């Protein structure tokens, strides 16, 4: 593990007042300290979800003369010198300095991917309404920043459904390990590795969409543009602080290189756009590049809790029954923090599913799985309260009462985006089909297995 990984989420001792509200939201009790004293984070336990970053309200006041200068703090946090916003005690390490350097390097071919939840929140940092949906402006901004290819994590979200859906069907029909757990949320994956290593076989072997995209950028993507894979600079924009930890996992180098070079959060992308002097509000709507930027509604709903489940069911239903799903809108898996269970009739099979949002809620189900009494086949877990839309790297809402509005609006925009997309099922994505035809051959095939699947590390 590299040095940068260990401290991705940190608490500034000079600024922390010891109110312990971060400890209240931490799903793994990783924050230690006395009340009224600066807190510390146990990095062994920390899942890097960044919910502490979102809740922290202790900031560096301009009236406080006893603390280190702002310039020093900005450098320590890996922020750009141009950042004007207030600095809070709980923060994540930024990677914009490295990204800016890469963008300025003419010898590199720059590819970027954006997670589904970024497009429903980034505009907030430019004063637009909470939850404004701006995929086109975001793509335009990334192009103006100097990325040669503006791709999308939503594409690999669709691809994840192809692989994970096939894996679920295989496990259900061939007596595989059940229930199968989703593996898109890196904080959840780290939690399983450290708290329930014996349940690792339940995790889907699929890489997260971020890492699938990373592996494809430096193989298939490089081939399309006829560039050297070693010259591909692979950046991802995520609503999540733990994605920084994920991209540094030593095993995620199946392209022959580090699959994702740097991860920046939604907040960091806004800072990068401001730093470049781009007028985000007045940008035209532009498309993502093809083929690795084509996506369906199923890919975009990965950004909200229940989204992976809903997308998987839309495709799984059709793969199993060979019939069109009666209604793509599966309201029973949608919602907010908590546990939802449902039974879905898929042909002759009664598929029992569980959706968990908020990592705090998962323990009782894990105990059931451990005891062998879990009565479901498939479980989606998202660490953050409403899924990725409320992730630790999302714009930080200053007033608690607006937080609810922000999360509601971001989730609502996600579903609106899905409703308005011409294609709503992952297996209908023409560029995913093309990718299988030209490169991967088939889901769970040899090449897919090599590039899109991974193994996990028991941490206890």
């Amino acid at each position: 593990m590299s040095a940068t990984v260990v401290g991705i989420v940190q608490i500034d001792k000079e600024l922390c007042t010891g109110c312990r509200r971060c400890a209240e939201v931490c799903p793994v009790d990783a924050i230690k300290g006395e009340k009224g004293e600066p807190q510390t984070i146990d990095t062994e336990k920390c899942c890097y979800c960044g919910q502490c970053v979102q809740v922290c309200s202790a900031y560096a006041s301009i009236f406080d003369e006893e603390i280190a200068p702002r310039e020093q703090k900005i450098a320590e946090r890996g922020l750009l010198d141009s950042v004007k916003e207030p600095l809070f005690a709980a923060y994540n390490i930024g990677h914009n300095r490295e990204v800016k350097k890469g963008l300025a390097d003419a010898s590199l071919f720059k590819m970027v991917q954006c997670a589904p939840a970024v497009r429903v929140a980034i505009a907030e940092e430019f004063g637009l309404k909470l939850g404004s949906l701006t995929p086109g402006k975001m793509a335009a901004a990334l192009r103006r920043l100097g990325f040669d290819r503006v791709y999308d994590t939503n594409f690999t979200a669709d691809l994840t459904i192809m692989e994970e859906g096939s894996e679920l069907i295989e496990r259900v029909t061939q007596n595989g390990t059940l229930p199968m757990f989703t593996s898109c949320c890196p904080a959840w994956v780290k939690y399983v590795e450290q708290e329930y290593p014996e349940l690792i076989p339940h995790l889907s072997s699929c890489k997260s969409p971020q890492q699938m995209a990373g592996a494809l950028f430096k193989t298939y993507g490089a081939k399309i543009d006829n560039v050297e894979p070693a010259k591909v600079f692979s950046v991802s924009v995520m609503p999540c602080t733990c994605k920084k930890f994920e991209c540094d996992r030593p095993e995620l180098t199946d392209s022959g290189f580090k699959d994702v070079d740097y991860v920046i959060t939604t907040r960091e992308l806004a800072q990068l756009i401001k730093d470049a002097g781009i007028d985000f509000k007045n940008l035209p709507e532009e498309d993502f590049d093809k083929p690795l930027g084509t996506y369906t509604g199923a890919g975009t709903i990965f950004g909200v809790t229940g989204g992976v489940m809903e997308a998987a069911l839309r495709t799984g239903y059709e793969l199993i029954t060979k019939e069109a799903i009666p209604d793509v809108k599966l309201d029973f898996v949608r919602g907010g923090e908590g546990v939802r269970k449902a039974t879905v009739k898929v042909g002759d099979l009664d598929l029992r599913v569980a959706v968990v949002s908020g990592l705090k809620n998962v323990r009782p189900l894990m105990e059931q799985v451990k005891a062998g009494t879990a009565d479901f086949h498939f479980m989606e877990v998202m660490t953050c309260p409403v899924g990725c839309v409320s992730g630790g790297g999302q714009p930080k809402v200053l007033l608690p009462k607006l937080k609810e509005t922000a999360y509601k609006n971001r989730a609502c925009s996600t579903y609106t985006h899905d409703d308005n997309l011409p294609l709503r099922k992952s297996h209908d994505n023409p560029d995913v089909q093309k990718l299988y035809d030209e490169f991967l051959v088939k889901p769970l095939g040899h090449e897919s297995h090599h590039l899109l699947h991974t193994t996990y590390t028991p941490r206890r």
Partner: protein
Amino acid sequence: MNTFVVANPHKCIGCKACEIACAVAHLDNSVATAGALEAPFLPRLNLVRTPMVTMPIQCRQCDDAPCANVCPVNAITHQEDKIIVNTDKCIGCKTCMIACPLGAMDMVPELENCQPVYQEGLQLNIEGQPVKEKIVAHKCDLCVGREGGPACVEVCPASAFVIVKPADMKKAIKNRRAASAAEVACIKKAN
């Protein structure tokens, strides 16, 4: 008698949410997220942390306001039930800051749309560029004009704030007097 806001040090957890809510409530334009904020927070109350106690301190809206008494340009006035600084008049002389017995007065850069206002007439360098920011007195105004009243009271996760209105004070004093009388009567009886 003026209304004021005061916090209970036994309840305060020292999170500074009140400072942020105060600063946001006084911005010219609505800012929802930290990244959209282009200027530092300028709260009108200040969290004090000592080994003994944690609590925010803000203006008590003194009825014979020492700050107003000493202001050489009459920039501090009484409006309805509060003491207000008129920043247009304020010359930043800091006399009010010295006079305030609570430490509730600050001097801050004056901002318009998150941008500092520069002082006219003061030449800072030989080129005559007006580069000196205007500094003005800054204090709690009980969130005058804000629907829902003072933002600090509304946001506090520990419910540590109390809005003290003259009527409440009168009632409390009356009750306290009654209790004192009863106590004295008891002592007399016992003797």
